[in-house]
């Protein structure tokens, strides 16, 4: 990521350099035009003029100035036929050239006034940008701010606290990379938080991500908050679960880079044109021109979506879809037909054969991109429902058992340690009985989030059922696993949950088993279960490692 930051810094320098040279370039165009008027539009001068305009149109957007490219292109398109016809432009045409040239020049004068607000777009789709994890809490309520700091730190966030707007403004002037949790009402100004954020948002390319915290729910204040560019508005007392969800969402690194699209079209030019459009949007694309060659890329490339031309010589798109739908492992992949067919009956027939949707040619590249991305997204969510628990997004019981077999085989192959942990929330029934199921669900979600955040990416977390969780700790022996899980246990017990206006805390018990002592999956899970039972039996809120001799 350091390299990406470095690249962005260098691009910014080039962009600065480009914008610095832009006035001179535009002035040069004006001089060329003046020269042409004097010379009676000699061909060589005209060609030079055209080429200079062309090069502006081909460069502006690369440096972040799409408007320059567009205006230059308009002028270029006007010049081209005149140049090809080798005629001297008449009065009307010269006026049109002047108008288009002035439009181009006008953009620049706007830019000079707007100082450095226009920069290279540094967050394209498909490039993971470093994730800000620092949270800036700005609230004059010292107690609340301190509490937020403690609670958020359990979820792996670094928190800085500010009690006054002035102190926060000062820090912002020195650079900023994070998310702001901003109180709205301050002693000096009842909308002080909103006003400061509006002020700070001015002239930034990427808006500051802000979550407002307010004890008021009035639509007028919410509206002001939206206008100041907030991403969320949370009412006090703050529901920590909702806040963490929002923060996780904002810091998530997921993007469209991983989406893979396979295009099947017998016309290479068209297929490549579609491929180009999708690639420009950051998707990964493979093209197959002969439908009979689809199997290899299908299995190797493993696309998230297949785009099929309806009419191809060796086999029709409908036949191909039917074949794909008869292969069980491909059942989840959306198939989208692409064709100039406008007959609704035929379109429906194609969908009946296993297609998911129908796009009509010719299609605008940006429509193709958004149609493909939205379908891939939806199908990935649907597929995740098959293996994931709906409340927590963790693997479900079946999925984690499958994963355990897989991870155990791998650990054996690589002669690496592996442990399995069972986690059960203590006295969970009391939570549901005292505060209701929605509060119970929130407690389950908070534990699932804590586990996901505190364990490594390779570790596998699942919801085993009810208030029970299962964790596969790869490359960790019993002793390490106990230490890791015990740290999480201590932090979980300190988390404060909110029910109406009451706060309460909950603990969990945990049993762990090591494959060094239990080499079969069923014995490993049984041993972890027994250790969990012992932990419960010895007073709960503790972590137990299964004894080797209990095998």
């Amino acid at each position, binding site marked *: 990521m350091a390299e990406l930051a470095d690249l962005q810094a*260098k691009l910014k320098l*080039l962009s600065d350099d480009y914008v610095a*040279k832009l006035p001179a370039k535009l002035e040069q165009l004006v001089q060329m035009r003046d020269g042409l008027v004097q010379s009676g539009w000699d061909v060589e001068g005209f060609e030079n003029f055209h080429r200079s305009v062309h090069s502006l149109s*081909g460069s502006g957007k*690369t440096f972040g100035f799409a408007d320059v490219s567009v205006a230059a292109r308009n002028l270029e398109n006007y010049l081209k036929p005149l140049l090809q016809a080798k005629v001297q432009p008449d009065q009307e045409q010269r006026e049109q050239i002047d108008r288009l040239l002035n439009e181009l020049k006008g953009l620049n004068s706007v830019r000079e006034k707007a100082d450095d607000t226009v920069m290279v777009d*540094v967050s394209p789709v498909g490039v993971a940008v470093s994730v800000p994890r620092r949270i800036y809490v700005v609230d004059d309520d010292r107690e609340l701010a301190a509490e937020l700091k403690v609670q958020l730190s359990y979820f792996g966030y670094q928190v800085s606290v500010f009690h006054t707007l002035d102190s926060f403004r000062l820090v912002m002037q020195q650079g900023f990379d994070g998310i702001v949790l901003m109180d709205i009402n301050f002693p000096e100004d009842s909308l002080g938080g909103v006003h400061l954020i509006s002020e700070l948002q001015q002239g930034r390319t990427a808006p500051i991500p802000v979550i407002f915290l307010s004890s008021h729910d009035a639509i007028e204040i919410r509206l002001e908050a939206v206008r100041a560019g907030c991403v969320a508005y949370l009412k006090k007392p703050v529901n920590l679960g909702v806040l963490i969800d929002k923060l996780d969402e904002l810091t998530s690194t997921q993007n469209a880079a991983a989406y893979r699209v396979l295009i099947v079209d017998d016309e290479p030019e068209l297929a490549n044109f579609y*491929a*180009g459009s999708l690639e*420009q949007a950051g998707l990964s694309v493979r093209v197959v021109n002969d439908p009979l060659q689809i199997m290899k890329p299908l299995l190797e490339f493993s696309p998230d979506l297949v785009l099929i031309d309806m009419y191809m010589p060796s086999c029709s798109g409908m036949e191909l879809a039917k074949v794909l739908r008869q292969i069980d492992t491909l059942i989840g992949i959306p198939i989208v037909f692409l064709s100039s067919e406008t007959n609704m009956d035929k379109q429906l027939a194609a969908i009946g054969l296993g297609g998911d949707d129908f796009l009509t040619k010719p299609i605008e590249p940006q429509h193709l991109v958004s149609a493909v991305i939205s379908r891939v997204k939806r199908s990935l969510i649907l597929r995740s429902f098959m293996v994931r628990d709906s409340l927590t997004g963790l693997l479900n019981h079946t999925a984690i058992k499958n994963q355990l077999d897989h991870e155990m085989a791998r650990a054996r192959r690589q002669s690496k340690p592996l442990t399995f942990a069972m986690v059960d929330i203590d006295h969970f029934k009391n939570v549901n009985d005292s505060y209701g199921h929605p509060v119970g669900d929130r407690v389950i979600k908070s534990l699932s989030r804590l586990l996901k955040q505190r364990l490594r990416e390779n570790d596998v977390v699942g919801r085993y059922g009810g208030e029970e969780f299962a964790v596969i700790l790869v490359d960790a022996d019993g002793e390490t696993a106990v230490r890791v899980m015990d740290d999480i246990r201590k932090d979980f017990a300190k988390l404060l949950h909110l029910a109406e206006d009451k706060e309460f805390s909950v603990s969990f018990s945990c049993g762990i088993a090591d494959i060094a002592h239990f080499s079969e999956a069923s014995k490993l899970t049984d041993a972890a279960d027994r250790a969990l039972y012992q932990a419960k039996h010895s007073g709960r809120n503790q972590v137990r490692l299964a004894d080797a001799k209990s095998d």
Partner: protein
Amino acid sequence: MAEALTRVLYTEDEPDIQAVARLALEMLGGFTVEICNSGAEALERAPDFNPQLILLDVMMPGMDGPTTLARLRELPQFANTPVIFMTAKVQPAEVAGYKKLGAIDVIPKPFDPMTLAGQVSAIWERSHG
């Protein structure tokens, strides 16, 4: 599996675009990049640099992209070297025209520096798939 793309020659008369393209191709693509200011320079330097892939701007003063391509093809060493044209937004029909001249693909200008290397890699992989 295709051989890995490492040496790219880019011919472009605009110094600003040269600088961005070099950054994008070297840093994001990890390629070794040779930049030439003109078609004539490309013809002169290509034999020593021995590029695996050549990017050619279409509109350049003096020798334009298509002419440069035709001259390159006369050299036995570059009879089959993949060439990509870089040019202002094009219609599919124009793309087909450029391909008839022997280019394997066309990358529209202005390009996005953050995705240029990815586009080049994808075209390379496709042409070697």
